[in-house]
Protein backbone atom coordinates (compact mmCIF):
# COMPACT_ATOMS: atom_id res chain seq x y z
CA UNK A 1 0.00 0.00 0.00
CA UNK A 2 1.21 3.54 -0.77
CA UNK A 3 1.52 5.96 2.13
CA UNK A 4 -0.44 8.57 0.17
CA UNK A 5 -3.49 6.30 0.17
CA UNK A 6 -3.53 5.56 3.93
CA UNK A 7 -6.95 6.31 5.37
CA UNK A 8 -7.55 5.96 9.10
CA UNK A 9 -11.12 4.68 8.84
CA UNK A 10 -10.14 2.04 6.28
CA UNK A 11 -7.18 0.97 8.42
CA UNK A 12 -9.40 0.61 11.49
CA UNK A 13 -11.95 -1.36 9.43
CA UNK A 14 -9.24 -3.71 8.14
CA UNK A 15 -7.78 -4.15 11.60
CA UNK A 16 -11.17 -4.89 13.14
CA UNK A 17 -11.90 -7.54 10.50
CA UNK A 18 -8.49 -9.12 11.01
CA UNK A 19 -8.84 -9.20 14.81
CA UNK A 20 -12.35 -10.70 14.65
CA UNK A 21 -11.04 -13.48 12.40
CA UNK A 22 -8.16 -14.22 14.75
CA UNK A 23 -10.38 -14.19 17.85
CA UNK A 24 -12.52 -16.87 16.20
CA UNK A 25 -9.58 -18.84 14.79
CA UNK A 26 -7.61 -18.91 18.03
CA UNK A 27 -10.74 -19.20 20.19
CA UNK A 28 -9.81 -16.30 22.45
CA UNK A 29 -11.85 -16.39 25.63
CA UNK A 30 -13.04 -12.96 26.96
CA UNK A 31 -9.87 -11.33 25.66
CA UNK A 32 -8.25 -8.42 27.44
CA UNK A 33 -7.32 -5.64 25.01
CA UNK A 34 -4.12 -3.77 25.97
CA UNK A 35 -3.00 -0.64 24.13
CA UNK A 36 0.60 0.60 24.28
CA UNK A 37 1.03 4.30 25.19
CA UNK A 38 0.41 6.53 23.43
CA UNK A 39 -0.60 5.77 19.81
CA UNK A 40 -1.49 2.16 20.61
CA UNK A 41 -3.76 3.33 23.43
CA UNK A 42 -5.61 5.68 21.05
CA UNK A 43 -6.22 2.87 18.55
CA UNK A 44 -7.13 0.47 21.36
CA UNK A 45 -9.91 2.81 22.57
CA UNK A 46 -11.48 2.71 19.09
CA UNK A 47 -11.04 -1.04 18.76
CA UNK A 48 -12.40 -1.75 22.26
CA UNK A 49 -15.62 -0.01 21.26
CA UNK A 50 -15.81 -1.59 17.80
CA UNK A 51 -15.29 -5.11 19.12
CA UNK A 52 -17.75 -4.59 22.01
CA UNK A 53 -15.35 -6.12 24.53
CA UNK A 54 -16.67 -6.50 28.07
CA UNK A 55 -13.30 -6.47 29.86
CA UNK A 56 -11.99 -2.96 30.70
CA UNK A 57 -9.28 -1.66 28.37
CA UNK A 58 -5.72 -2.13 29.61
CA UNK A 59 -2.98 0.44 29.03
CA UNK A 60 0.75 -0.22 28.95
CA UNK A 61 3.74 2.15 29.19
CA UNK A 62 6.88 0.28 28.22
CA UNK A 63 9.39 2.98 29.24
CA UNK A 64 10.85 0.94 32.12
CA UNK A 65 11.33 -2.07 29.83
CA UNK A 66 13.00 -0.40 26.84
CA UNK A 67 16.33 -1.85 25.72
CA UNK A 68 17.85 1.55 24.86
CA UNK A 69 18.05 3.05 28.39
CA UNK A 70 21.86 3.03 28.22
CA UNK A 71 21.77 5.12 25.04
CA UNK A 72 18.96 7.58 25.69
CA UNK A 73 18.46 7.55 29.46
CA UNK A 74 15.25 8.02 31.34
CA UNK A 75 12.15 9.70 29.96
CA UNK A 76 10.61 11.66 32.84
CA UNK A 77 6.96 11.66 31.73
CA UNK A 78 6.14 7.99 32.10
CA UNK A 79 2.43 7.14 32.18
CA UNK A 80 1.53 4.45 34.66
CA UNK A 81 0.45 1.16 33.13
CA UNK A 82 -3.16 0.29 33.94
CA UNK A 83 -3.52 -3.47 33.93
CA UNK A 84 -5.38 -5.99 36.08
CA UNK A 85 -3.06 -7.21 38.87
CA UNK A 86 -2.94 -10.76 37.44
CA UNK A 87 -2.61 -11.71 33.78
CA UNK A 88 -2.00 -15.39 34.54
CA UNK A 89 -3.89 -17.56 32.05
CA UNK A 90 -5.54 -14.62 30.28
CA UNK A 91 -6.10 -14.25 26.54
CA UNK A 92 -4.63 -10.90 25.51
CA UNK A 93 -4.84 -8.73 22.42
CA UNK A 94 -1.83 -6.42 22.44
CA UNK A 95 -2.30 -3.37 20.26
CA UNK A 96 0.15 -0.76 18.96
CA UNK A 97 -0.07 1.89 16.27
CA UNK A 98 3.03 1.09 14.16
CA UNK A 99 5.11 -2.09 14.06
CA UNK A 100 8.67 -1.26 13.01
CA UNK A 101 11.74 -2.91 14.59
CA UNK A 102 9.82 -5.11 17.03
CA UNK A 103 11.66 -3.77 20.09
CA UNK A 104 8.60 -2.02 21.55
CA UNK A 105 6.68 -5.29 21.42
CA UNK A 106 9.56 -7.17 23.04
CA UNK A 107 9.50 -4.63 25.90
CA UNK A 108 5.70 -4.87 26.16
CA UNK A 109 5.80 -8.68 26.36
CA UNK A 110 8.45 -8.49 29.09
CA UNK A 111 6.22 -6.19 31.12
CA UNK A 112 3.11 -8.30 30.55
CA UNK A 113 4.92 -11.42 31.77
CA UNK A 114 5.80 -9.56 34.97
CA UNK A 115 2.06 -9.55 35.69
CA UNK A 116 1.79 -13.32 35.14
CA UNK A 117 1.95 -15.92 32.35
CA UNK A 118 -0.84 -15.27 29.84
CA UNK A 119 -2.51 -18.08 27.89
CA UNK A 120 -2.26 -16.40 24.47
CA UNK A 121 -1.11 -13.02 23.20
CA UNK A 122 -2.42 -11.79 19.86
CA UNK A 123 -0.43 -8.91 18.39
CA UNK A 124 -2.41 -6.32 16.42
CA UNK A 125 -1.10 -3.13 14.81
CA UNK A 126 -2.65 -0.41 12.73
CA UNK A 127 0.33 -0.33 10.34
CA UNK A 128 3.20 -2.75 9.82
CA UNK A 129 6.22 -1.23 8.10
CA UNK A 130 9.50 -2.70 6.88
CA UNK A 131 12.57 -2.65 9.15
CA UNK A 132 11.99 -5.57 11.53
CA UNK A 133 15.10 -6.22 13.69
CA UNK A 134 14.02 -9.06 15.97
CA UNK A 135 11.96 -12.18 15.29
CA UNK A 136 8.51 -10.88 16.23
CA UNK A 137 5.69 -9.96 13.87
CA UNK A 138 2.05 -8.92 14.11
CA UNK A 139 -0.86 -11.35 13.80
CA UNK A 140 -3.31 -8.66 12.67
CA UNK A 141 -2.80 -5.39 10.84
CA UNK A 142 -4.68 -2.55 9.18
CA UNK A 143 -2.09 -2.27 6.41
CA UNK A 144 1.47 -3.22 5.51
CA UNK A 145 3.67 -0.51 3.93
CA UNK A 146 7.22 -0.03 2.69
CA UNK A 147 9.09 3.13 3.68
CA UNK A 148 12.56 4.20 2.51
CA UNK A 149 15.29 4.22 5.16
CA UNK A 150 15.32 7.55 7.01
CA UNK A 151 11.55 7.92 7.03
CA UNK A 152 9.13 6.98 9.73
CA UNK A 153 5.40 6.91 10.10
CA UNK A 154 3.77 8.67 13.02
CA UNK A 155 0.24 8.63 14.34
CA UNK A 156 -1.09 11.90 15.76
CA UNK A 157 -4.17 12.17 17.96
CA UNK A 158 -6.12 11.18 19.93
CA UNK A 159 -8.81 13.22 18.15
CA UNK A 160 -8.70 13.39 15.24
CA UNK A 161 -6.43 10.47 14.47
CA UNK A 162 -4.09 11.21 11.58
CA UNK A 163 -1.02 9.68 9.97
CA UNK A 164 2.14 11.59 9.05
CA UNK A 165 5.21 10.40 7.20
CA UNK A 166 8.28 12.14 8.65
CA UNK A 167 11.90 12.23 7.56
CA UNK A 168 14.40 11.23 10.26
CA UNK A 169 15.61 14.81 10.91
CA UNK A 170 12.20 16.01 12.07
CA UNK A 171 11.26 12.68 13.60
CA UNK A 172 13.83 12.97 16.38
Amino acid at each position, binding site marked *: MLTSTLNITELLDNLETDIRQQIALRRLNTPLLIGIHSGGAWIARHMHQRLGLTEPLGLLDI*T*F*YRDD*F*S*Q*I*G*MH*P*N*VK*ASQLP*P*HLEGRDIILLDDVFYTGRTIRAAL*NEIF*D*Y*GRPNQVLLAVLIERNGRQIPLQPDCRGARIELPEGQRIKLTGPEPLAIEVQTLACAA
Partner: protein
Amino acid sequence: MSRHLQLTENGKLKHFLSIEGLDKALLTEILDTAESFAGISEHQVKKVPLLRGKTIVNLFFENSTRTRTTFELAATRLSADVLNINIATSATSKGESLLDTIRNLEAMHVDMFVVRHALSGAAHFIAQHTAPHISVINAGDGQHAHPTQAMLDMFTIRQHKKHFEGLKVAIVGDILHSRVARSQILALNTLGVSEVRVIAPKTLLPAHVRSMGVIPLHDMDAGLKDVDVIIMLRLQKERMNSAFLPSESEFFRCYGLTEAKLALAKPDAIVMHPGPINRGVEIASSVADGSQSVILQQVSNGIAVRMAVMTMTMGSRGGMQ
Protein backbone atom coordinates in the same frame (compact mmCIF):
# COMPACT_ATOMS: atom_id res chain seq x y z
CA MET B 1 31.47 23.96 41.78
CA SER B 2 28.67 21.76 42.96
CA ARG B 3 26.64 22.29 39.78
CA HIS B 4 29.71 21.72 37.62
CA LEU B 5 30.49 18.47 39.39
CA GLN B 6 26.93 17.17 39.50
CA LEU B 7 25.85 17.77 35.92
CA THR B 8 26.97 16.54 32.53
CA GLU B 9 27.83 18.98 29.74
CA ASN B 10 24.24 18.78 28.49
CA GLY B 11 22.77 19.52 31.93
CA LYS B 12 21.83 15.97 32.95
CA LEU B 13 22.37 14.69 36.47
CA LYS B 14 25.68 12.81 36.68
CA HIS B 15 26.13 12.71 40.47
CA PHE B 16 23.63 13.68 43.17
CA LEU B 17 25.63 15.28 45.96
CA SER B 18 23.68 18.34 47.05
CA ILE B 19 20.59 20.38 46.21
CA GLU B 20 22.90 23.38 45.87
CA GLY B 21 23.34 24.47 42.27
CA LEU B 22 20.37 22.50 40.94
CA ASP B 23 17.51 24.45 39.43
CA LYS B 24 13.75 24.09 39.80
CA ALA B 25 13.38 22.27 36.46
CA LEU B 26 15.83 19.55 37.49
CA LEU B 27 14.29 19.11 40.96
CA THR B 28 10.87 18.87 39.33
CA GLU B 29 12.22 16.26 36.90
CA ILE B 30 13.37 14.18 39.88
CA LEU B 31 9.89 14.43 41.43
CA ASP B 32 8.15 13.57 38.15
CA THR B 33 10.43 10.58 37.59
CA ALA B 34 9.79 9.41 41.16
CA GLU B 35 6.07 9.67 40.48
CA SER B 36 6.51 7.19 37.64
CA PHE B 37 8.24 4.73 39.96
CA ALA B 38 5.80 5.09 42.86
CA GLY B 39 3.47 2.33 41.64
CA ILE B 40 6.10 -0.35 41.11
CA SER B 41 6.23 -1.33 44.78
CA GLU B 42 2.57 -2.38 44.50
CA HIS B 43 3.12 -4.72 41.53
CA GLN B 44 3.20 -8.47 41.93
CA VAL B 45 6.72 -8.39 40.47
CA LYS B 46 8.26 -5.38 42.21
CA LYS B 47 11.01 -4.94 39.65
CA VAL B 48 11.75 -3.24 36.36
CA PRO B 49 14.82 -4.10 34.26
CA LEU B 50 16.26 -0.59 33.81
CA LEU B 51 19.56 -1.17 35.66
CA ARG B 52 19.96 -4.88 34.93
CA GLY B 53 23.63 -5.75 34.85
CA LYS B 54 24.71 -2.66 36.82
CA THR B 55 26.45 -2.93 40.19
CA ILE B 56 25.73 -0.42 42.93
CA VAL B 57 27.89 -0.21 46.04
CA ASN B 58 26.43 1.04 49.31
CA LEU B 59 29.43 2.59 51.05
CA PHE B 60 28.11 3.39 54.51
CA PHE B 61 30.83 4.73 56.79
CA GLU B 62 28.09 5.79 59.21
CA ASN B 63 25.23 3.60 60.39
CA SER B 64 21.74 4.05 59.01
CA THR B 65 19.49 1.05 58.62
CA ARG B 66 16.54 2.91 57.10
CA THR B 67 18.46 4.92 54.49
CA ARG B 68 20.65 1.99 53.49
CA THR B 69 17.64 -0.33 53.22
CA THR B 70 15.68 2.05 51.02
CA PHE B 71 18.72 2.58 48.75
CA GLU B 72 19.14 -1.19 48.55
CA LEU B 73 15.45 -1.74 47.78
CA ALA B 74 15.53 1.03 45.17
CA ALA B 75 18.52 -0.58 43.45
CA THR B 76 17.08 -4.10 43.53
CA ARG B 77 13.73 -2.86 42.21
CA LEU B 78 15.66 -1.46 39.26
CA SER B 79 17.25 -4.94 38.86
CA ALA B 80 20.76 -3.75 39.77
CA ASP B 81 23.14 -5.88 41.82
CA VAL B 82 23.90 -4.35 45.21
CA LEU B 83 27.03 -4.65 47.28
CA ASN B 84 26.84 -3.52 50.90
CA ILE B 85 30.30 -2.75 52.23
CA ASN B 86 30.52 -3.32 55.94
CA ILE B 87 32.85 -0.52 56.92
CA ALA B 88 33.37 -1.87 60.43
CA THR B 89 35.24 -4.85 58.96
CA SER B 90 36.45 -3.25 55.73
CA ALA B 91 39.96 -2.35 54.70
CA THR B 92 39.59 1.31 55.76
CA SER B 93 39.45 0.10 59.36
CA LYS B 94 42.76 -1.66 58.69
CA GLY B 95 44.43 1.57 57.60
CA GLU B 96 43.66 1.63 53.88
CA SER B 97 42.89 5.13 52.61
CA LEU B 98 39.45 6.03 51.31
CA LEU B 99 40.84 6.54 47.81
CA ASP B 100 42.51 3.13 47.79
CA THR B 101 39.22 1.56 48.84
CA ILE B 102 37.47 3.38 45.98
CA ARG B 103 40.17 2.34 43.46
CA ASN B 104 39.82 -1.30 44.49
CA LEU B 105 36.05 -1.21 44.11
CA GLU B 106 36.41 0.51 40.72
CA ALA B 107 38.66 -2.36 39.66
CA MET B 108 35.72 -4.67 40.38
CA HIS B 109 33.76 -2.82 37.62
CA VAL B 110 31.10 -1.21 39.75
CA ASP B 111 28.82 1.50 38.33
CA MET B 112 27.67 3.60 41.27
CA PHE B 113 28.65 4.52 44.82
CA VAL B 114 26.02 5.45 47.39
CA VAL B 115 28.05 7.16 50.10
CA ARG B 116 27.24 7.97 53.69
CA HIS B 117 29.99 9.49 55.77
CA ALA B 118 30.33 11.38 59.05
CA LEU B 119 32.56 13.97 57.39
CA SER B 120 31.07 16.81 55.33
CA GLY B 121 32.30 16.70 51.74
CA ALA B 122 33.09 12.97 51.61
CA ALA B 123 30.72 12.28 48.70
CA HIS B 124 32.08 15.30 46.78
CA PHE B 125 35.61 14.04 47.34
CA ILE B 126 34.77 10.60 45.97
CA ALA B 127 32.91 12.09 42.99
CA GLN B 128 35.97 14.22 42.15
CA HIS B 129 38.32 11.26 42.22
CA THR B 130 36.28 8.41 40.85
CA ALA B 131 36.35 7.11 37.25
CA PRO B 132 34.21 9.11 34.76
CA HIS B 133 31.70 6.32 34.13
CA ILE B 134 30.79 6.00 37.83
CA SER B 135 28.00 8.00 39.47
CA VAL B 136 28.04 9.00 43.14
CA ILE B 137 24.97 9.62 45.28
CA ASN B 138 25.31 11.37 48.62
CA ALA B 139 23.35 9.47 51.28
CA GLY B 140 24.29 11.98 53.97
CA ASP B 141 27.64 13.63 54.74
CA GLY B 142 28.43 15.17 58.10
CA GLN B 143 26.37 18.27 58.75
CA HIS B 144 26.43 19.21 55.07
CA ALA B 145 23.73 17.55 52.95
CA HIS B 146 21.24 14.72 52.62
CA PRO B 147 19.74 15.48 49.22
CA THR B 148 17.70 12.31 48.62
CA GLN B 149 16.01 12.74 52.02
CA ALA B 150 15.14 16.33 51.08
CA MET B 151 13.73 15.20 47.73
CA LEU B 152 11.58 12.47 49.27
CA ASP B 153 10.26 15.13 51.66
CA MET B 154 9.47 17.39 48.68
CA PHE B 155 7.78 14.44 46.96
CA THR B 156 5.62 13.83 50.04
CA ILE B 157 4.70 17.53 50.29
CA ARG B 158 3.72 17.59 46.61
CA GLN B 159 1.55 14.49 47.06
CA HIS B 160 -0.49 16.32 49.70
CA LYS B 161 -0.31 19.97 48.65
CA LYS B 162 -0.04 19.67 44.84
CA HIS B 163 1.91 22.96 44.44
CA PHE B 164 4.82 24.51 46.31
CA GLU B 165 3.87 28.10 45.54
CA GLY B 166 2.01 29.72 48.41
CA LEU B 167 3.03 27.15 51.02
CA LYS B 168 4.33 28.07 54.48
CA VAL B 169 6.66 25.46 55.90
CA ALA B 170 8.03 25.24 59.46
CA ILE B 171 11.16 23.23 60.24
CA VAL B 172 11.42 22.63 63.98
CA GLY B 173 14.23 21.41 66.23
CA ASP B 174 17.93 20.82 65.88
CA ILE B 175 18.64 22.90 62.75
CA LEU B 176 22.28 23.43 63.74
CA HIS B 177 23.34 19.80 63.41
CA SER B 178 20.91 18.78 60.67
CA ARG B 179 22.17 18.09 57.14
CA VAL B 180 18.56 17.20 56.31
CA ALA B 181 17.38 20.69 57.26
CA ARG B 182 20.03 22.32 55.07
CA SER B 183 18.99 20.27 52.06
CA GLN B 184 15.28 20.80 52.79
CA ILE B 185 15.71 24.59 52.99
CA LEU B 186 17.55 24.66 49.64
CA ALA B 187 14.94 22.45 47.99
CA LEU B 188 11.94 24.33 49.40
CA ASN B 189 13.32 27.69 48.30
CA THR B 190 14.30 26.39 44.85
CA LEU B 191 10.83 24.91 44.35
CA GLY B 192 9.25 28.24 45.25
CA VAL B 193 7.47 27.94 48.61
CA SER B 194 6.31 31.27 50.04
CA GLU B 195 7.91 31.02 53.45
CA VAL B 196 10.31 28.75 55.28
CA ARG B 197 10.40 29.21 59.05
CA VAL B 198 12.98 27.56 61.25
CA ILE B 199 11.96 27.19 64.88
CA ALA B 200 14.55 26.28 67.51
CA PRO B 201 16.32 27.57 70.62
CA LYS B 202 19.20 29.94 69.79
CA THR B 203 21.70 27.25 70.66
CA LEU B 204 20.38 24.98 67.90
CA LEU B 205 20.30 27.52 65.07
CA PRO B 206 23.34 28.27 62.85
CA ALA B 207 24.74 31.79 63.33
CA HIS B 208 23.83 33.14 59.88
CA VAL B 209 20.68 31.12 59.32
CA ARG B 210 18.81 34.12 57.87
CA SER B 211 21.18 34.09 54.88
CA MET B 212 19.74 30.70 53.94
CA GLY B 213 16.45 32.37 53.03
CA VAL B 214 14.48 31.42 56.13
CA ILE B 215 12.74 33.21 58.97
CA PRO B 216 14.27 32.19 62.32
CA LEU B 217 11.88 31.97 65.28
CA HIS B 218 12.32 30.84 68.86
CA ASP B 219 8.67 30.67 69.82
CA MET B 220 6.79 27.55 68.75
CA ASP B 221 3.30 29.07 69.06
CA ALA B 222 4.11 32.00 66.79
CA GLY B 223 6.11 29.83 64.41
CA LEU B 224 3.41 27.24 63.78
CA LYS B 225 0.60 29.71 63.17
CA ASP B 226 -1.06 29.03 59.80
CA VAL B 227 1.67 26.79 58.40
CA ASP B 228 0.85 24.13 55.78
CA VAL B 229 3.71 21.77 56.57
CA ILE B 230 5.54 21.02 59.84
CA ILE B 231 8.85 19.20 59.59
CA MET B 232 10.11 17.99 62.96
CA LEU B 233 13.79 17.13 63.33
CA ARG B 234 15.52 14.72 65.64
CA LEU B 235 17.76 16.03 68.39
CA GLN B 236 21.17 14.88 67.16
CA LYS B 237 22.69 14.19 70.55
CA GLU B 238 25.55 12.24 68.98
CA ARG B 239 26.71 15.45 67.26
CA MET B 240 26.42 17.62 70.35
CA ASN B 241 29.80 18.05 72.00
CA SER B 242 28.62 20.46 74.67
CA ALA B 243 25.44 21.37 76.55
CA PHE B 244 23.00 22.81 74.02
CA LEU B 245 19.89 22.19 76.10
CA PRO B 246 18.88 22.28 79.76
CA SER B 247 17.11 18.89 79.42
CA GLU B 248 15.06 16.79 77.00
CA SER B 249 11.88 17.37 79.00
CA GLU B 250 12.48 21.12 78.86
CA PHE B 251 13.02 20.86 75.11
CA PHE B 252 9.78 18.92 74.68
CA ARG B 253 7.87 21.47 76.75
CA CYS B 254 9.10 24.34 74.54
CA TYR B 255 9.63 22.74 71.13
CA GLY B 256 7.93 19.33 71.16
CA LEU B 257 5.00 18.93 68.78
CA THR B 258 1.85 18.15 70.76
CA GLU B 259 -1.76 18.05 69.61
CA ALA B 260 -2.33 21.49 71.19
CA LYS B 261 0.58 23.02 69.24
CA LEU B 262 -0.43 21.27 66.02
CA ALA B 263 -3.84 22.95 66.31
CA LEU B 264 -2.11 26.30 65.67
CA ALA B 265 -1.21 25.24 62.13
CA LYS B 266 -3.71 25.09 59.27
CA PRO B 267 -6.34 22.36 59.81
CA ASP B 268 -4.99 20.38 56.83
CA ALA B 269 -1.33 20.80 57.78
CA ILE B 270 0.82 17.70 57.44
CA VAL B 271 3.39 16.54 59.99
CA MET B 272 6.70 15.18 58.76
CA HIS B 273 9.83 13.75 60.36
CA PRO B 274 12.87 12.27 58.60
CA GLY B 275 13.26 9.69 61.37
CA PRO B 276 14.19 8.03 63.53
CA ILE B 277 11.71 9.76 65.85
CA ASN B 278 12.26 10.30 69.55
CA ARG B 279 8.78 10.06 71.02
CA GLY B 280 8.30 12.48 73.87
CA VAL B 281 11.45 14.44 72.97
CA GLU B 282 10.59 16.25 69.73
CA ILE B 283 7.14 14.81 68.99
CA ALA B 284 4.26 13.36 71.03
CA SER B 285 3.19 9.82 70.14
CA SER B 286 -0.39 10.96 69.52
CA VAL B 287 0.89 13.34 66.81
CA ALA B 288 3.44 10.93 65.31
CA ASP B 289 0.68 8.32 64.93
CA GLY B 290 -2.11 10.83 64.26
CA SER B 291 -4.15 11.48 61.13
CA GLN B 292 -2.01 14.43 60.01
CA SER B 293 1.24 12.48 60.22
CA VAL B 294 2.79 11.43 56.89
CA ILE B 295 5.95 10.00 58.47
CA LEU B 296 5.48 6.45 57.14
CA GLN B 297 4.59 7.76 53.68
CA GLN B 298 7.97 9.51 53.71
CA VAL B 299 9.63 6.12 54.20
CA SER B 300 7.70 4.55 51.28
CA ASN B 301 8.42 7.55 49.07
CA GLY B 302 12.12 7.19 49.81
CA ILE B 303 12.28 4.14 47.56
CA ALA B 304 10.64 5.83 44.55
CA VAL B 305 12.78 8.97 44.88
CA ARG B 306 15.99 6.94 45.14
CA MET B 307 14.95 4.89 42.10
CA ALA B 308 14.48 8.17 40.23
CA VAL B 309 17.88 9.56 41.20
CA MET B 310 19.62 6.28 40.37
CA THR B 311 18.09 6.06 36.89
CA MET B 312 18.65 9.73 36.13
CA THR B 313 22.33 9.59 37.07
CA MET B 314 22.96 6.23 35.38
CA GLY B 315 21.10 7.19 32.21
CA SER B 316 22.75 10.56 31.84
CA ARG B 317 25.46 9.49 29.44
CA GLY B 318 24.90 8.15 25.96
CA GLY B 319 26.75 4.94 25.21
CA MET B 320 27.18 4.17 28.90
CA GLN B 321 29.18 1.02 29.45
